């Protein structure tokens, strides 16, 4: 049944505006003409002065030969820069190297100096506390640390003197 119906349909149902095929020809030609506008231009339209190319060689060769003759020694040449910068570096090194001032390290600080420093500079506990981050001191560090008697005795013998203890 359905097949028979299809056989009966002869056209697609599309149609064109009136006179379409007459006008499409015109449109195509006008497009072709538009493209040919570009095709007609073969030259950009620039020109050069008379004898320009003939005289160019001489002018240019004069220039290249002049440049060869006058050798310019630049102030900031590479070798000059190396000399100047090496002298500057040597002077800088002189001030920066620790030849003249030996910085103290934690190993050679004696307790007295540290004590004096803390007293003279009047460092508050807050300032000292600020040097420790939260992570550094934990309760465990204090609680779990075992002070055995021998250690304490030894410490007191070496570091404490009786006067100081009495004063405290």
């Amino acid at each position, binding site marked *: 049944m359905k097949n028979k119906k299809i056989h009966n349909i002869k056209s697609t149902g599309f149609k064109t505006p009136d006179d379409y095929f007459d006008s499409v020809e015109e449109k195509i030609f006008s497009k072709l003409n*538009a*493209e040919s*506008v*570009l095709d*007609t*231009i073969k*030259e*950009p*339209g*620039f*020109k*050069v*002065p008379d004898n*320009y*190319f003939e005289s*160019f*060689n001489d*002018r*240019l*060769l004069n*220039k*290249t030969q002049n*440049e060869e003759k006058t050798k310019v020694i630049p102030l900031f040449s590479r070798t000059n820069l190396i000399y100047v910068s090496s002298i500057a570096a040597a002077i800088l090194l002189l001030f920066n190297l620790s030849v003249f001032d030996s910085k103290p390290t934690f190993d050679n600080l004696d307790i007295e100096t540290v004590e004096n420093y803390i007293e003279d500079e009047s460092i508050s506990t807050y300032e000292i506390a600020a040097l420790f981050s939260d992570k550094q001191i934990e309760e465990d560090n204090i609680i779990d640390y075992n002070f055995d008697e021998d250690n304490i005795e030894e410490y007191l013998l070496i570091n404490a003197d009786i006067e100081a203890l009495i004063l405290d």
Partner: protein
Amino acid sequence: MIEEAQLLEQLQSKTHKNKAFKVLLELYKERLYWHIRSIVKSHDDADDVLQNTFIKIFKNIDNFKADSKLFSWMYRIATNESITFINKKSNRLKISSEELQQLAINNLTSDVYFEGDDIQLKLQKAIATLPEKQQLVFNMKYFEDLKYKDMSEILETSEGALKASYHIAVKKIEAYLTQN
């Protein structure tokens, strides 16, 4: 015509350099001139840039490695010199390089070394509306008739990209020419 390899050998030798350079000038000055002129537009600027280009070629020929053609190396120098020239000039005049180009196009009407008719002037105006790279590609293909393969070496861009650029450029120019 002298072989490029042979010419290069002479250019890089001390004894024959000047003679070979004259040959090189004869061979390429006109082609490079028109290439530069298409970018900078005015004759005086093109003359400056052409001289700078050949001076640069003369000075740097010893460093030239034959991994590209001498011809495309020279074109590359000419292109770079032209673009540098335009950028410097626009900096000096404190305008953008696009504005400078518009100025150059407007000056063409009074330029004694421009003999183009209305339609040629219109084409120059149309070219000036394109981005820099498309202008280069259009000029090199349309007026200088270079092969895509050579353009690819000069501009260091793939052939496919160049073909696409040229196609877009032609479309834009056609649209400009039919509209205006």
